[in-house]
């Protein structure tokens, strides 16, 4: 029986010919990324690192620091980098959400395997690079030793077919999947996304889907590396890489086919990404805040869609709209494309890149009773601040249309 993408990448990094579901393998990691938030946890002082050039410190969760506790954590992060001679430090001004920083700097390469404690590390799968969230103690081990362990899991496949309807984005597809199959569909399973529609999707659209595989509880969530991936990665690194494809007789525990041509824009209502419904069922729900940002949907493509809808119009007076570009690079691209002007003219608040409001860190925290429509990936109770607030997940298009109307609105109108 042949291997799936995840199995092949694990075998390659374990230095063995073959792995099978159930095996526990020790693997070498290509890079380790430690975000600022990890430094809010006092787990002890690391005494060595395996290779300072393969460790990256990324300021993303609360950047810049919003209070003294986080300022102290940021200081610890800088001290840590200095102590071990780590040069890849994405400090304030050169920062952004880690998953996108990794991509922009060419660290997510086809066939690769990375270590990062953020739960949305599966984002790397859009680049045919294996990643999944690790715990903080094992991150210390990964940074000291350059390795970690995984139990090889079975692989579940989503075959995406059909033409994307107007104003339906890849976010709608993954919210639909979370609703239809449940957020536990991929517990202890790897996921592969394949099919003709996936080939049509931009890299950014694939990133959204790989990112949200964390909300299906997936282990690794992988795409094949086509020309779009190879061209992007080649433009970002001179390091060699070898894309990994599944073997012809690879075994999948299940294959689900999704015909996107029948999907409406989706909204996941509180308090689970799995509570997705066609927008028509929740249209008219009043909102207090709109958040566009995060590692899920804060890239240039997302901002372009939002600008298209906002251009020349005004955010509803009862609503505050917060737009957080994912990285400094995204911010600069949006500036150059004139998008920031469109947002400001529309009455939206554009913030610096940060995870920020997505996890209730800063720049868009919710009060009790407030409702927010968000392009992020999680709407758990208490996620964005008050435990009595309500988060609705949607695409950038649906978020923008809702900002204008002051209530949840179908972007096709």
């Amino acid at each position, binding site marked *: 029986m042949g291997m799936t993408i995840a199995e092949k990448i694990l075998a390659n990094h374990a230095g063995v010919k073959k792995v099978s579901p159930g095996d*526990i393998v020790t693997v070498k990691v290509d890079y380790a990324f430690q975000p600022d*938030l990890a430094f*809010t*946890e*006092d*787990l*002890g*002082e*690391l*005494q*060595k690192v395996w290779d300072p050039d393969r460790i990256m410190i990324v300021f993303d969760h609360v950047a810049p620091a919003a*209070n003294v*506790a*986080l300022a102290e954590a940021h200081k610890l992060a800088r001290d840590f980098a200095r102590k071990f001679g780590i040069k890849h430090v994405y400090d304030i001004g050169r920062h952004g959400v880690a998953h996108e920083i990794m991509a922009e700097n060419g660290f997510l390469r086809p066939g690769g395997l990375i270590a990062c*404690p*953020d*739960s949305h590390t599966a984002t790397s799968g859009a680049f045919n690079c294996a990643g*999944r*969230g*690790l*715990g*903080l*103690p*094992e991150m*210390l*081990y990964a940074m*000291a*030793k350059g390795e970690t*362990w995984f*139990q090889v*899991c079975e692989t579940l496949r989503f075959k995406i077919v059909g033409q994307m309807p107007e104003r339906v984005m890849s976010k709608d597809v993954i919210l639909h999947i979370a609703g239809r199959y449940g*957020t*536990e569909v991929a*517990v*202890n399973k790897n996921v592969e996304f394949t099919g003709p529609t996936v080939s049509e999707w931009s890299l950014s659209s694939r990133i959204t889907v790989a990112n949200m595989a964390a*909300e299906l*509880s997936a*282990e690794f969530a992988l795409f094949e590396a086509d020309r779009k991936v190879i061209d992007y990665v080649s433009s970002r690194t001179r390091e060699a890489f070898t894309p990994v494809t599944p073997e012809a007789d690879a075994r999948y525990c299940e294959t689900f086919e999704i015909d996107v041509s029948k999907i409406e824009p989706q909204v996941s209502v509180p308090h*689970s990404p*799995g509570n997705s419904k066609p927008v028509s069922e929740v249209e008219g729900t009043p909102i207090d805040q709109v958040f566009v940002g995060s590692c899920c949907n804060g890239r240039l493509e997302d901002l372009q869609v939002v600008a298209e809808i906002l251009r020349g119009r005004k955010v509803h007076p009862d609503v505050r709209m917060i737009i957080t570009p994912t990285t400094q690079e995204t911010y600069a691209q949006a500036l150059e494309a004139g998008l920031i002007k469109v947002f400001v003219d529309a009455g939206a608040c554009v913030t610096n890149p940060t995870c920020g409001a997505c*996890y*209730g*860190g800063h720049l868009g925290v919710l009060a009790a009773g407030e409702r927010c429509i968000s392009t992020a990936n*999680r709407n*758990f*109770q*208490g*996620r964005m*601040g008050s*435990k009595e607030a309500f988060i609705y997940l949607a695409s950038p298009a649906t978020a923008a249309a809702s900002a204008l109307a002051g209530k949840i609105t179908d972007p096709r109108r």
Partner: protein
Amino acid sequence: MKLRGRVWLFGDSINTDLMYPGFVTTLPEAERPKYCMGANRPGWSEQVREGDILVAGKNFGCGSSRPAAKSLRSLGVSGVLAESINGLFLRNAINFGLPALSLEGVSRMFGEGDIAEVDVGSGYVENVRTGETKVAVPLPQALIHIIASGGLLPLLIKVGYLKG
């Protein structure tokens, strides 16, 4: 490794935002556990006692890498039994020395306040009140070894990678 403790019942998809809300990262370590389950079950963190066992539904611990398992340990929870356990939470549970087993049907096997007995090594689970027993697929030996050592951190200290 054997556990015996009073059972607390929780539902499906108990996530890390419930166990370790974002705002606690700015609080001193010692204060963080008291906000565990504050949104879904206010007051629970004061009622839970040393040795108690948490029995839950599907996908326990979904969400982020926040050290929710550490908070459960600090509150005295001796183990978690759930219909299924999120992969990232399981890694954290092992690394913070918290035994956690997936066992189909376990959430219907216990009432709140029942006494559970668990043999982590073999996966044997018993409801002492009803006498009902089930056997979970045990964790691999290498991972049980980490749990029995009190988690990964003491092991890292032992090999000199970490100063506690």
